[in-house]
């Protein structure tokens, strides 16, 4: 199926980020440089069509999100522990709204449980070079997002 997933991501991600974590995303045109603590957050979906949503991001942004969500100091050990959980939750919410943006509100999709794992330059650059990648800047740090729909 041919859908402008980049337009959907540009609309959905900044809204979800702001409403969920009180952080703001700016569109970024240039190549995003690898943060030292880069992770890949992945969620798969299946329904009338299937695929994945990938996000590469600095792990420290997850800690910032968790501290905003829970009202904790970013240095607090609870915020540190909750950082990956916050990234998974952001991914889960973003994916749900991206699928509505692509397919409308009738189809039923099943979502996988999001995963988070550290990545190096090779995987960061590969996602950054994908044709459908959308790059944002959040609090001075790059975030790369890409929807992959399998035919």
């Amino acid at each position, binding site marked *: 199926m041919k859908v402008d997933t980049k337009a959907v991501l540009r609309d959905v991600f900044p809204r*979800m980020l702001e*409403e*969920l974590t009180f952080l703001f995303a700016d569109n970024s045109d240039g190549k995003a440089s690898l943060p030292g603590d880069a992770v890949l957050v992945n969620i798969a979906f299946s329904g009338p069509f299937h695929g994945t949503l990938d996000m590469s991001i600095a792990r420290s942004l997850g800690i910032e999100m*968790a501290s905003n*969500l*829970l*009202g904790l100091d970013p240095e607090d050990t609870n915020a540190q522990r*909750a950082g990956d*959980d*916050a990234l*998974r*939750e952001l991914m*889960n*919410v973003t*994916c*749900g*709204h991206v*699928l*509505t943006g692509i397919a409308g*509100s*009738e*189809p*039923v*999709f*099943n*979502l*996988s*449980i999001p995963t988070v794992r550290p990545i190096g330059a090779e995987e960061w650059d590969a996602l950054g070079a994908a044709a459908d990648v959308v790059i944002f800047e959040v609090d001075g740090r790059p975030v790369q997002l890409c929807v992959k729909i399998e035919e």
Partner: protein
Amino acid sequence: MSINVLIVDDSETVRAILAKTMRMAEMPINELYNAANGQEALEVLRNKWVDLVLTDINMPVMTGVELIERMNTEDNLKGIPVVVVSTEGSATRVAELKMKGVRAYIRKPFTPEQFREICTEVLGPSNEG
């Protein structure tokens, strides 16, 4: 009147966010119980008095839909109001959940005001804080 609430979500952070949202919404909470999946939720429900269940759908071990189906088979549990809190936006899925007896559906993200409004609708005005 204060209520006992069970929050079912596999993410400890999401459970903490929901608890915080309920405090911000000034809901009259007496006891707050937590479960990481449907199976754990059933254990709590069989042993504690719960007035309201807030559950995610997508969880390991036992999903929210399976939890609702199991609650419907147990006389002591089938009358407990269940509100699904999830990211999914499918009207078809929401209709299916309501057919299974789910009282309301809250789509993430939401504000404390939206949350309070829906919970008050489910529990009735006598449970307003």
